[in-house]
């Protein structure tokens, strides 16, 4: 407690030097740089994500009171029709999850763009693990709804997991049970969704925040003269971002209910049966790539991201704004990816033998971007170009996936039979 003699009246201290630091105030340094305060530096992603996590835990805890894994769909209908604010509560949980995915993705892109991983490899790994937990939470969450998407989503994920060498069959039994998909498997996924995943996430969030503080906070190199007291400058902005996010997500939940498709029919998937927006790219990839290759792509992508701080040889963090030479490399990489994918999809349309062409086009673009960028401006630029290529491919696959209509033919998403994203 700052070595303060006991008995001294607290009121005599200026408000900004509050002598009873709480856990929350301990997360803040006494002084922060003005650069770290700017919204453009952080996107407010940390506070926005924390706020959404809080909303998810709270709304999830309340939802669990009425949720029945054995009759999932019926319990959701009852929640939405008979429980006061039940519909809004589920909508709040749904839109907060979507919001958290978007915020986490933006934060991820910022960290990659600024090469902030280079100096803080530990927190980069913690962040990646959090992104993984978030993805698994979203996945297990939508399998709990009991509609068509839940059932067939779980079915496809179990099918994909079964292709994993050695551990595949065991993992499927662990997470989905040994029988057919139904109340028993929903019970397992529910347990995973409400116990292991959120508690692991909570632990890693604490580690993530603690590490930011330990590493000197945001913009650690700022000279002392350019620093201002964290309170009120930082705290005020944090409260503002939290309130804005809270307002936005509550307003959205009040205006728009969470989607609820027709009840699961184990004999007849919808046509088409589409994954939620964040998995559309993966679904599109799976629709034209052997399952083992899909797993390999995921494995290599995760491994490469985890190794990024050690692959990058430039040391310190960079700027989000690329240099002129780098901009040319990045623009060429993006154009190459889009062009390659367009040509590949053209080839698929002409010949069934070319069905893996889009996946191969992405692989080619990544290799070209990595080697071209490295030769032109160094290894960091090469890595950035390769990551941009992957991001563009993800975007293109998502858009194509959104345009898959009945019988998996391409149709505009707003056309009849295209199915919701």
């Amino acid at each position, binding site marked *: 407690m700052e070595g303060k003699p006991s008995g001294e009246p607290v009121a005599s201290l200026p408000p900004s030097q509050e002598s009873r630091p709480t856990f929350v105030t301990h997360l803040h340094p006494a002084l922060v740089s003005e650069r770290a305060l700017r919204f453009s530096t952080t996107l407010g992603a940390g506070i926005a994500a924390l706020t959404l996590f809080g909303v998810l835990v709270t709304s999830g805890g309340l939802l669990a009171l009425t949720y029945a894994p054995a009759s999932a769909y019926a319990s959701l209908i009852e929640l939405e029709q008979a429980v006061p604010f039940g519909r809004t509560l589920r909508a709040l949980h749904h839109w907060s999850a979507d919001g958290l995915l978007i915020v986490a993705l933006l934060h991820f892109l910022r960290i990659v763009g600024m090469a902030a991983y280079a100096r803080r490899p530990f927190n980069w790994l913690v962040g990646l693990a959090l992104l993984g937990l978030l993805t698994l939470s979203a996945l297990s969450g939508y399998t709990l709804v009991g509609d068509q998407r839940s059932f*067939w989503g779980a*079915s*496809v994920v*179990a*099918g*994909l997991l079964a292709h994993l060498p050695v551990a595949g069959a065991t993992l499927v039994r662990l997470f989905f049970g040994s029988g057919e998909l139904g109340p028993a498997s929903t019970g397992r996924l529910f347990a995973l969704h409400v116990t292991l995943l959120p508690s692991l996430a909570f632990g890693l969030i604490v580690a993530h925040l603690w590490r930011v503080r330990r590493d000197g906070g945001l913009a650690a190199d700022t000279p002392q003269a350019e620093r201002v007291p964290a309170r009120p400058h930082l705290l005020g902005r944090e409260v503002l971002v939290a309130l804005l996010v809270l307002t936005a997500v509550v307003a959205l939940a009040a205006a728009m209910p969470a989607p609820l498709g027709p009840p699961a029919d184990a*004999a*007849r*998937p*919808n*046509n*088409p*049966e589409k994954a939620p927006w964040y998995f559309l790219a993966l*679904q599109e990839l*799976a*629709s*034209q*790539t*052997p*399952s083992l290759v899909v797993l390999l792509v995921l494995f290599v992508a995760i491994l490469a991201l985890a190794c990024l701080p050690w692959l990058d040889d430039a040391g310190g963090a960079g700027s989000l704004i690329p240099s002129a030479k780098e901009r040319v490399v990045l623009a060429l990489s993006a154009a190459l990816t889009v062009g390659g994918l367009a040509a590949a999809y053209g080839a698929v349309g002409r010949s*069934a033998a070319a*069905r893996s062409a889009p996946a191969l086009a992405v692989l080619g673009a990544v290799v070209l971007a990595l080697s071209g960028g490295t030769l032109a401006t160094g290894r960091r630029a090469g890595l950035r170009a390769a990551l941009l290529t992957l991001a563009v491919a993800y975007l293109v696959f998502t858009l194509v996936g959104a345009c*898959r209509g*009945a*019988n*998996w*033919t391409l149709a505009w998403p707003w056309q009849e039979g295209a199915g919701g994203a």
Partner: protein
Amino acid sequence: MSSIATAALGTAAIATGAAALAIASHVDSGIDSTLLPPLLPAVGSMLFIKEQAVYLVRTPEGLGALSARCTHLGCLVRQNGRGFVCPCHGARYDGMGRVTAGPAPRDLPWLAVQVRADGAIAIDRRREVAAGTVAPLAPRAR
């Protein structure tokens, strides 16, 4: 016995037609084989048996069973023109279950069908047979 399912044609089936074709997980007694012909798919067409996730295929030679379970990631395929399409990732098969396009690694398997003396149809989901294998229908049912 548990792996053999029997198409049991009860009185409900008479009233509501082929859609009510019931599958029991045990060998059902009291099957009225005289009900069989109007409920069978017409020659050259097929009928989806929901509980078994198979297409019952009628050819001039008899009855075959084609699994509806997509060999890609396990969704159920739908009839599309003369063939099948999977609504989850777009795998395509022809009317014999052979892969024509998309990500499916194998053809749809054909399953063993048995037409019993009393006209009941048994499909063994665990026993794969050569593509196009059909069981001859009992003379009464034909």
